């Protein structure tokens, strides 16, 4: 198959193909929690709150070997144009679970048997890439809560819009219908080892293109890690928990 030119030549918001959206971060946005953070990329915003470690109930489900991590992801009813029904859905349960697995690979809860660390991720505003924004916020909130972690996690959604690999897709790009359409690949990378903690794929992609997409994602994650690190360090100067 001869390689044809992609139908997606210029990004709708004028970004370069490997350019992420404008990022805003804040650590310690919920004073009463043990740790909290906000992560915003373009019009997608995520808030993560960490509570615990605290005793896990019901008692018969406790793990006497090490503590547990429990992630709860949810979109706020007003986060999109048409209202989202509050409460758990198939989609939110799935994202909670994959986020939990991704974060479990870096946190070290061996010092807290029978305890649980709760991570709540809420999306006040959604414009594609909410699970990766949620993961970025959750990693910062966990660090802010003083939970032992082997390393940090940074996440980005890589897209294949027709034949073009782009980084940090927005909703408009995600809905691209022409040619091969759009493929959305959320990817989470750990900060030290560069391991992949989360990789999902929605659409069609060839093995070569996937490799290219992962490479682009890893590059973008380095940039996000810098932003996360800076936000955390700045927060310790201007009053840690408040």
């Amino acid at each position, binding site marked *: 198959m001869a390689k044809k030119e992609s139908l997606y030549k210029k990004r709708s918001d004028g970004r370069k193909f490997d350019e992420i959206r404008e990022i805003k971060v804040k650590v310690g946005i919920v004073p009463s929690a043990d740790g909290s953070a906000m992560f915003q990329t373009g019009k997608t915003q995520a808030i993560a709150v960490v509570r615990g470690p605290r005793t896990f109930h019901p008692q018969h489900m406790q793990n006497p070997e090490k503590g547990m991590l429990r992630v709860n992801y949810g979109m706020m009813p007003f986060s999109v144009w048409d209202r989202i029904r509050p409460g758990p859905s198939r989609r939110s349960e799935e994202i909670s679970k994959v986020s939990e697995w991704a974060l479990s690979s870096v946190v070290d809860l061996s010092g807290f048997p029978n305890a649980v660390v709760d991570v709540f991720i809420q999306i006040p505003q959604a414009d594609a890439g909410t699970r990766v924004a949620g993961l970025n916020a959750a990693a910062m909130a966990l660090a802010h809560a003083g939970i032992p972690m082997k390393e940090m996690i940074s996440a980005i959604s890589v897209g294949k819009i027709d034949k073009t690999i782009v980084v940090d897709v927005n909703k408009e790009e995600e809905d691209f219908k022409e040619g091969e359409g759009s493929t959305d690949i959320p990817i989470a990378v750990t900060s030290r080892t560069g391991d992949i903690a989360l990789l999902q794929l929605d659409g069609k992609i060839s093995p070569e293109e996937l490799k290219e997409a992962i490479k682009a994602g890893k590059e973008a994650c380095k940039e996000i890690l810098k932003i996360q690190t800076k936000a955390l360090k700045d927060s*310790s100067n201007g009053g840690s928990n408040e």
Partner: protein
Amino acid sequence: MDKEGRQIVVPGETIVKGNEFLPGDNVYRDGEEVVSKRFGIVEISEKHVRVIPVSGAYYPRRGNTIIGTVVDVTFNGWLIEFGGVQNAFLPVAEVPRYINKNELREYLDFGESVIVKVWDVKSRGVDVSMKMRGYGKLEGGLIISVNPNKVPRIIGKEGSMVKLIKSATRCEITVGQNGKVWISGNSVEEELATKKIIEFIVENATINGLTEKVEKYIKSLGMKSEIEIIEKNTGEDEQDG
């Protein structure tokens, strides 16, 4: 590095390289590198590397003074809730007076508050004692909750800040490392004034020269401290533990 020259690290960040360094609290070794496991300030003494957390929940350590509430009475002691992962256990033997084993509730009942010392921290829980001077059941006064990370600021260098508040309001103050503060004075007004001052300290915990600010604040409340703080607070946190 922040403005006071302290090195702040995030989890997964390399602190130092070299096999001669010894990993201490909250750090781990990865090949040649010593890596942080928690968000906090680096402390390297000799070749011993550790990270002191700057935020997050309170973790009890041996020797800490904590204030808690009785949540359960068992056949040989009490369970104390203090804001940690697990409740602390206070055995009958660690109470400095004779107690009838059948009438534990006569001495300490549900919902009553105590000030205790952390005796032992195990993975299964915390053992506490009240067998020393200054520890025991709390009667009267009020208990307020503050951020446990701000406790060193309330205490001040060698207790200078607490001394200052005590002399101004003539209240008895006990600061628990778990972020609970017990205030007991002659009148409710004095107790509430003390509460206000402590809240002022917590709000301004990151400011340099906090002692002077607090002195001014006490004056603005219409009170006067009887002692002069000669030693100026340098803004350096006194680390507990």
